[in-house]
């Protein structure tokens, strides 16, 4: 019944000075000139925030009404990026997690305080290995690590069949940078249980069934949209599990630049998993002419280390939006299900 075994002692560690972290709280790897670019857009950002505030109303009171009346305006604005200061609130509104929270008062507290989970030690093992370069999560046993532990433990109790799986920490960690523990927990529930879009829990269930399906579908999309590259990949024996598993399991939060990950999450929460396929395809498309000339080892390296310009959200995302995937995803899902039913019948 111990609230957070092993995470009880608070050890104040060195907190890096402000100038050493970027605007999102990550320790700067090298000093870049991005702050100058950030300054330029400040007045435009202020205008955007005003527009957004009007759209969502006080505490989100006008949101549902607005979405019903002008869904296309909302979609367009989200695709341009949610203002950072409103992100936490808007994410809760578009994911349906706010409703879950209101319908389940006291449940989170119950899960955190009174329940024990079989995954506690697994979670503790990974806590310091989740966003280790972010100030909030860096401090050993600090508030960031405690919240992360609590959210993951609560989820592992909430759905004991799924429990805790590596990768979930990156989702929870990302959310915790924008909202409270309890809000983050319910957003995780909304995603995995499918409050608005298809449930994501298959990414983490035994056998990782949804990962396998998504990788199959992604391979199809590559050969359909980038046939030459698809052929090159199969000649070089490259398959999506070698580079894209993390894209799906952590929705690009594991190793992509944070500004890009946030913009993807804005769209992901509103439009669903399709955007993950689209961004993946856009990355390959952007680097197509380089990738097509690389052999196996260099390919693997390139597919894990995309050039900086490819990961600029204002270049990559418009490209991603222009790619149509719905029809192909539908077809490849049917085919995947057919292929995976067969062996069982024959056996």
């Amino acid at each position, binding site marked *: 019944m111990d609230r957070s075994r092993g995470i009880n002692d608070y050890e104040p560690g060195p907190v890096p000075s402000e100038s050493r972290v970027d605007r999102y709280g990550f320790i700067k790897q090298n000093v870049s000139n991005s702050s100058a670019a950030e300054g330029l857009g400040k007045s435009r950002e202020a205008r955007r925030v005003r527009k957004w505030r009007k759209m969502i109303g006080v505490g989100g009171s006008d949101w549902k009404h607005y979405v019903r009346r002008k869904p296309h305006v909302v979609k367009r604005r989200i695709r341009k990026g949610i203002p950072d200061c409103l992100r936490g609130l808007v994410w809760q509104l578009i994911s349906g997690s706010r409703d879950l929270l209101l319908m389940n008062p006291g449940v989170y507290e119950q899960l955190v305080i009174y329940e024990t989970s079989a995954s506690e030690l697994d979670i503790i093992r990974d806590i310091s290995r989740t966003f280790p370069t972010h100030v909030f999560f860096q401090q050993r046993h600090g508030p960031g690590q405690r919240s992360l532990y609590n959210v993951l433990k609560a989820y592992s109790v909430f759905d004991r069949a799924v429990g805790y799986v590596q990768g979930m920490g990156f989702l929870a960690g990302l959310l915790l940078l924008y909202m409270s523990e309890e809000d983050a927990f319910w957003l995780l529930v909304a995603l995995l249980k499918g409050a608005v879009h298809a449930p994501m829990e298959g990414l983490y269930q035994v056998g990782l069934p949804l990962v396998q399906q998504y990788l199959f579908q992604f391979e199809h999309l590559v050969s359909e949209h980038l046939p030459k590259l698809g052929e090159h990949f199969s000649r070089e024996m490259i398959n999506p*599990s070698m580079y894209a598993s993390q894209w799906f399991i952590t929705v690009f939060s594991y190793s992509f630049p944070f500004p890009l990950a946030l913009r993807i999450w804005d769209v992901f929460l509103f439009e669903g998993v399709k955007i993950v396929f689209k961004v993946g395809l856009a990355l390959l498309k952007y680097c197509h002419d380089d990738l097509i000339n690389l052999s196996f080892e260099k390919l693997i390296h390139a597919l894990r280390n995309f050039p900086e310009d490819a990961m600029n959200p204002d270049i990559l995302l418009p490209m991603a939006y222009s790619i149509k995937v719905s029809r192909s995803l539908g077809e490849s899902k049917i085919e995947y299900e057919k292929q995976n039913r067969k062996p069982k019948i024959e056996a």
Partner: protein
Amino acid sequence: MAYKVDHEYDYLFKIVLIGDSGVGKSNILSRFTRNEFCLESKSTIGVEFATRTLQVEGKTVKAQIWDTAGQERYRAITSAYYRGAVGALLVYDITKRQTFDNVLRWLRELRDHADSNIVIMMAGNKSDLNHLRAVSTEDAQSLAESEGLSFMETSALEAFNIEKAFQTVLLDIYQIIRKKALAAQESASGTGVPQGTTINVNNMSDNANKKPCCST
């Protein structure tokens, strides 16, 4: 995947890094391929990959190493990578008994999914944390003997025995392959059939330059 190719390298050996989560597999890989160690490393999601080319008995050998996520749930993805592997580094953490107790489960995994004559090195990692030791060297040694594994304690942090562990695996693989080649050669000459693709075991690449690390 033990290929003989006549450019860049003489042999390509596929090696897998397996073992429980948090035992230090990714740091063993980065120490071996880039001579780097990262205290703030993230848990591995799925698989990672790196290579290094080195000399074994005068031959240029490229080690192609797949580093796998350790959590049991991930075996659904990672076990596919055992196929074609000729070597495995099975890692446990000397400060965590459970990770050693699970070695037998990992061996079963290898026997189910990998080649039957795969060369296995058991590595007791984090030997720098001797004051927190929970697995004695003797226990590990006797397990290694009864299971027919090579064994070494290693420290990715202190760069202790990492090089040696991989060198040993690669040498064992090389010797197995050489033996097979010789046997093939003998049986071929015994039946009088000319053998077109025997592997040359003469030291033809004595002065081959050591290739730099391929991964950046």
